[in-house]
């Protein structure tokens, strides 16, 4: 019985998920094209979104094709996220391990932390202009915070008896860090990475809305100015697909790195 359930469960989940998506699409079609309940300027019909999709793929829109916009946005997210992780995780580990480092950094951190990503954008434009650097900077600032906090918490949650056990086996401080503290913090580090990645996408789209030459945020911004609902939906769907895709990739990495955990 149990084995049968385990085999059935994923396929049933996929079926339900597919059914939900199809139902929403069906309702959408009914509300717009079928029964014409909604003004097409409020919510465009599926056919209009499809036309917008073909337009941006063929001739392009807002200066480039959809793929070019998406790749540009992906590149910025990848850079900002990478810089945030490379700087944030080690800082969080250091603060978790050393009370002195925590005392030094924490006050600055507590002051900067409540500032929302959007509030940094004007400063980023003043400093770096409308180009890529400013956006990477803003993504870094916002994605940095969850990486630091979760790496910090991860270190503090490492079972002290494991550290004691490693020391009784003759482990040096470097060996304790490498073999006990960092692997022990890894599940929390990945929680932080997931939050950082979400923050990266949110911030990027916000930054591109304010000012950009390319990118999915730019598509949304121009489509808004053109009052072109079909293209707005294409832009939103593209952000959703890119965000979900990168989260899925991170999940693959997480499962591989944390292969020692019991299956959920």
């Amino acid at each position, binding site marked *: 019985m149990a084995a049968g359930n385990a085999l059935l469960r994923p396929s049933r989940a996929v079926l339900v998920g597919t059914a939900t998506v199809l139902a929403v699409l069906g309702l959408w079609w009914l509300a717009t094209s079928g029964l014409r309940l909604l003004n097409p300027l409020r919510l465009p019909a599926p056919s209009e979104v499809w036309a917008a999709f073909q337009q941006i793929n063929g001739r392009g829109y807002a200066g480039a094709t959809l793929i070019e916009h998406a790749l540009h946005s992906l590149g910025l997210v990848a850079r900002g996220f990478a810089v945030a992780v490379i700087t944030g995780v080690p800082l969080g580990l250091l603060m978790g391990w050393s009370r002195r480092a925590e005392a030094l950094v924490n006050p600055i951190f507590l002051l900067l932390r409540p500032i929302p990503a959007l509030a940094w954008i004007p400063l980023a434009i003043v400093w770096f202009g409308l180009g890529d650097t400013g956006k990477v900077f803003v993504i870094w600032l916002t994605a940095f915070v969850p990486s630091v906090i979760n790496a910090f918490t991860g270190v503090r949650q490492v*079972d002290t*008896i*494991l550290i*004691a*056990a*490693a*020391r*009784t*086996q*003759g*482990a*040096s401080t470097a*060996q304790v860090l490498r*073999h*006990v503290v960092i*692997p*022990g913090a*890894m599940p929390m580090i990945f929680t932080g990475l997931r939050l950082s990645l979400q923050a990266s996408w949110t911030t990027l789209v916000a930054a591109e809305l304010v000012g950009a030459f390319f990118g999915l945020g730019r598509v949304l911004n121009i489509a808004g100015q053109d009052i072109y609902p079909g293209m707005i939906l294409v832009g939103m769907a593209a952000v959703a697909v890119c965000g979900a895709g990168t989260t899925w990739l991170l999940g693959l990495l997480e499962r591989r790195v944390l292969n*020692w*955990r*019991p299956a959920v």
Partner: protein
Amino acid sequence: MSEIVFKAVTKTFRLPRGGEFLAIDTTDLRIEEKEFVAIVGPSGCGKTTLMRMAAGLEFPSSGSVEVGGKRVVGPGPERAVVFQQFALMPWKTVRENIGFGLMCRGAPKAEADAAIGRYIELMGLSGHEDSFPHQLSGGMQQRVAIARAYVMNPAALLMDEPFGALDAQTRIVMQEELVRLARRNPRTVIFITHAVDEAIYLADRVVVMGRKPGRIIETIDIKPLRAEGGWEEMPIEEVMDTPAFTHMRSRIWKLLKAREQAAADH
């Protein structure tokens, strides 16, 4: 040389609301080289604290702890510790957990692999070398922890209620195996337990502790009983049925009870 000597050791803890709590009153104890000593006593008698002092994980408030004539200033691989909660690294396989200390020491790979393989076989872990701890039962996890301690070839073994988290059947199997292992590889051992049976069955000498404050009530030699009774040739349940064993058990129970009574009246 690896005798463990506690010299006039005391331990006080500062209470959060001010004042001090005397956990261990002036205690002297000498454990000879390759002697197996079990310390029994109720929770809060300081038995685990004594062991942790020998391990270098805690330090006396006054007095000193010496192992092999050297004052203990921190943990070290010549004093292996087995914890009640197993304390295996969940992200390392059985083989990696057992080999961790050897890796820290920088032992040559061939030599380490041979030693790890020997203890995997000795502790009945064959076939589980590449399992992660969560895939093993509690008894198997503690076998890994014991193998990890022995593989370092330590002068002293410090065990803190190692079978306390195991079910009754597993516990009996592990006690028999530990006797077998200890006979094959004699070491200086401190074995902390609150199970009187376990202490009598395993140890050469049983140290009985009481609380409020924590101190040694009596030290009892078990070695002559074991030799006379031929315990090592008998299964554990028969040993525990012998008159000598039951008599010793009630004697220790009476000591513990009398001390608890005195502490309560105080």
